[in-house]
């Protein structure tokens, strides 16, 4: 493989990786506070993509407006699932919560399926994102550059919120010990809602980015992306925001490089995420930026 192709592959890897990272953050944060693997998270991303599609294709708004509405609707969906499905089960065994999450995921897939019809939708990419940039033979679209930059900016904001604000402190404290924090007079449910707001809005942004890069939407698109982002979160160390981002990038890179070097084995691409998942669980269950769950998080 020559240098040019390699550079091209690096760019491909970064762009795939940052999308996994955006979605993985939501998994990791919810896990941090609720110890719940929110399997509906991939569907929140899908909802975001579909709302973005509706705004662009039906109401013909600008991408910015579309993203804004997509974030709003996704946040509403995320918060509502928490209020309706998870909140009544706070004291229930964790397995009930997990099964509820899977149920919510089916519910969202099928609602979108009924609402938008069963066929695949084509996401109208604004002109600006469809241009080609050629730097010394490496060709890419603006999306490839914008996605990692925005991912990084959002990550910085998130880290600031987590470590420098009162709410961030509350989230971290909640992850540490939910009962004690409640006793200290912090409204745990409000903070959990905040976590869902952050996670869902990042998922919506991820969904819009995904649609910009791969403009075919189906109601079931969230399943595989969600599972991979989950694997990325575990790889990076579930409960750790930085770890989720790192895991996302590692997974994206490995996938791209695997296909780049062995395109004839490309059919096994999806397996990589799960091989990682199994290896991490066998070797270092706490992941790369591992946090011992009995001690601290974030």
């Amino acid at each position: 493989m020559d240098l040019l192709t390699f550079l091209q592959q690096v760019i491909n890897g970064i762009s795939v990786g940052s999308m996994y990272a955006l979605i993985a953050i939501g998994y990791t944060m919810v896990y941090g506070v609720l110890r719940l693997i929110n399997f509906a998270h991939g569907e929140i991303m899908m909802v975001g993509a579909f709302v973005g599609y509706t705004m662009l294709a039906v109401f013909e708004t600008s991408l910015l407006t579309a993203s804004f509405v997509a974030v709003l609707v996704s946040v509403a969906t995320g918060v509502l699932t928490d209020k309706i499905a998870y909140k009544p089960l706070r004291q229930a065994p964790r397995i009930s919560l997990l099964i509820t999450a899977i149920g919510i995921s089916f519910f969202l897939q099928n609602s979108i399926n009924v609402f938008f019809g069963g066929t695949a939708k084509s996401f109208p990419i604004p002109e600006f994102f469809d241009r080609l940039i050629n730097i010394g033979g490496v060709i890419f679209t603006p999306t490839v550059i914008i996605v990692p930059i925005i991912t990084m900016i959002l990550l910085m904001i998130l880290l600031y919120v987590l470590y420098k604000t009162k709410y961030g402190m509350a989230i971290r404290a909640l992850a540490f010990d939910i009962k004690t924090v409640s006793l200290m007079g912090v409204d745990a449910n409000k903070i959990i809602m905040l976590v869902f707001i952050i996670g869902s809005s990042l998922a919506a942004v991820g969904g819009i980015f995904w649609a910009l890069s791969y403009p075919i939407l189906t109601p079931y698109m969230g399943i595989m992306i969600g599972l991979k982002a989950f694997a990325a979160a575990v790889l990076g160390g579930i409960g750790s925001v930085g770890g989720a981002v790192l895991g996302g990038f590692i997974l994206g890179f490995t996938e791209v490089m695997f296909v780049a070097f062995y395109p004839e084995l490309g059919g096994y691409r999806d397996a990589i995420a799960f091989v990682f998942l199994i290896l991490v669980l066998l070797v270092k269950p706490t992941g790369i930026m591992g946090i011992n769950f009995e001690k601290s998080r974030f």
Partner: protein
Amino acid sequence: MKKIVSMVAAATLMASLGYAKEVKIGVVLPMSGPIGGFGQYANKGLNFAHELTPTLKNGDTVKLILLDNKSDKIESANAASKLISSDKVTAIIGALTSTNTMALTKIAEDGKTPVVAPVATNPLVTKRRAFTSRVCFNDNFQGAVAANFALNDLKVKNAVVITDVKNDYSIGISSVFKRTFKKMGGKILKTVKINQGDSDFKAMLSNVKSLNPELIFVPFYSAEVALIAKQAKQLGINAKFLGTDGMAGDKVFFEVGKDAVEGFYGTNLYSPDAPKTTEASKVFDEKFRAKFNEAPHPFGVLSAESYNVIIAAMNACKDPSDSICVNKNIRATKNFQGVSGVISLDKNGDAVRSAVIETIKNGKAVYLKTVNP
């Protein structure tokens, strides 16, 4: 109360016996899911055929029972079980594509119910299946047509083949294409594998680009081909692209592909612009255009054909709901003047028919030529 209910029930039963009988045809189509677009077009054509011929010659009405297989093979098998055991259908049309049809043929075989597949072209679909027939050619023919076209018309010398390993149709036609292409002196540079439902192909395409192929063969469905076209254009790949009958089937292909799919070539089962070879196809085409103000879709025409073949077979039986007789007559179809052309079924239940070659121009599939077997 109970008495009244049972009396009403009995009366209804008597009434239904008094009228002409009803024969049921089960329909299994992907109405939703990744290839939902295919199913929608197929169903439109099928319903139109039903509208044109809603009854048999003896006056029995035909009832279509549609089940959505959600583009999934397990759902296809479930749908066939339900149609055979609970709806007691006489014949089944479906499940449109190869993978899903292959999932239900065993069940139909056990239930002795004939299956007519509209566009399932994988050679294995009818293999060792006495009750499965199809109105399309099989890919031993289509793959050879594609290889021939590539070498003789496009005059390419080498090719990269991309195979969708989740799709039996793609696996089958890829291997036939490679075999024929090599036998005729072409060179296969590489076979690359993808999965249906994948969306990122850049890594794979960057690798393909470094091989500098003259032709890229993309024998799979609309969504994946469109994404590959788009990403290939983004990477500056200049090779010619050749697809197969699943390529331009869904409008998502044109919506997503836009200018990236311009100049693509594809083999197909039927083209509404090809010269009509039968009276039936002329009439069907005209009536369809008059009603819907659009050209009939190849998958719709082939589904309508499946319906007509079954109806003809039923008409030839004394008891049209005798599925074994219907199957025998479907298999005996010879020189059938169908809405998609003249078809004859061979001993395996595969239609012997011509293929068309199209190219994509201005967001539409344009007819190039017809290839006869």
